[in-house]
């Protein structure tokens, strides 16, 4: 892909922090999904924060893709938390009638990381030696 990056996926310990930088179309959203799932495997991540603060709209497709990503990540052994949903985007999602219950969310990146680090959550340390 040319031009500025649409999405960045940063690694911090056993967590991945994925930030969306601009409005994504469907194809880019699916590419992002594949990219993220692949990186969860590569870095043996146990927690993922997806920052969607830059998304202008979370329509049914966008929301479904996020939910799919979270579910796929869960199946790969990583917990996902979505952060940065803007108030108006949240309002639109509710008005649209979207069921958004199953994926944990947090206000912003800080809260998201705190959520992952909570007692009983997926701590920042690496996976057990059995896996590594």
């Amino acid at each position: 892909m040319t031009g500025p990056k649409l999405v960045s996926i940063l690694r911090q310990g056993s967590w991945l922090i994925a930030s969306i930088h601009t409005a994504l179309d469907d194809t880019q959203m699916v590419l992002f999904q594949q990219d993220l799932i692949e990186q969860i495997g590569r870095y043996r991540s146990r927690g993922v924060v997806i920052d969607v603060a830059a998304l202008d709209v979370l329509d049914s497709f966008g929301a479904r893709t996020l939910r799919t990503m979270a579910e796929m990540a869960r199946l790969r052994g990583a917990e996902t938390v979505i952060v940065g949903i803007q108030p108006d985007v949240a309002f639109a999602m509710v008005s649209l009638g979207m069921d958004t219950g199953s994926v944990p969310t947090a206000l912003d990146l800080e809260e998201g990381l705190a959520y992952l680090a909570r007692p009983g959550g997926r701590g920042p340390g690496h996976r057990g030696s059995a896996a590594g």
Partner: protein
Amino acid sequence: MSAAESVGMREDRRPHDDVAALIPMLRRIIEARVDDAATADDLVQETLVRVLAAAARVEPGMLEPYAIVTARNVVASMWRDQDRHRRNQHRVVDLDLPDPPDQDLLANEERTAVAEALSRLTDRERATLLAHEVSGQDTRSLAAEQGSTAGAVAAQLNRTRARLRVEYLLVQANVEPPTERCRPVLLALSGGDRRRQREVDAGRHLLECDVCARLSQPLMERAQPRDDEVRIPISTDADIVAARQAARELAARLGFARTELTLIATAVSEVTRNIVRFAGTGEVVVELVDRPRRGVQVTARDTGPGIPDVERALTDGYSTYSGLGLGLPGARRLMDEFAVVSEMGRGTTVTMTKWCGER
């Protein structure tokens, strides 16, 4: 020729020898002022000619200062000429392009097309139009002749012009409109009558009819560009983002709250995705309306297969692809007005409106 030769040929040798002796000095003087060697040479020659012509009149011993002054003058007048030339150069440019070789042919075709288009008008339309445009008769006297009003005649002239434009385009493209809907649509576009365009559903027809899509180009360009309308052709999912951003931008001008802008953008996103998923191509038109109230209206048209059961498609959870089944019903909830018209095999039009301000 060289100055020395010309000097040598004179019969009275004395003063000419003096002049010849001046040449190296003159060359020095002029070359000190003029860069270009060829020009300098020319100026030396010119100076010599003048000095020679005056040599008989000049007092002995004064020839050298005379030559020096002459040389300076020659250089100065060259500079003056150059300056004048530079200042007036723009006047010399010939703005008229030479006639292209095919001009006659094209003009001829043009004439034939106009004549043919004129012959397709009714006699009355033609007579009135020619009386007004060619003979310069004003609408009031035309109205008096026809027992009508000036306003009515002007309106009739406008309709005639619109027809003439359409017929001209048809003649020039050498096509007959493929369907009986083509002419009314082209006429509505030509006349710039938006209400009429809606009545004949011009937007949909242009999506369906290639001939009209092509012919209507010049008619659309004619229309005054409207800054309260955006038209986005839809074919890939990148266009979904373009459409919703265009809608948000346009609606923002009406002073919608940020929340409402997001609702509009989300609804546009949903209906536009339907076009990409089910129809492949179509268009989204976003326009600002002010009747009955101020608001933003979105029309999404496609020429896809159509929706077999619109009622069911508007029900939550009905989905033909692995979506959430929220597309149409969701968009309906986000907007204030919502209408779907679908015809099997011909396509679907979704029209939705969000009013601005108090409900």
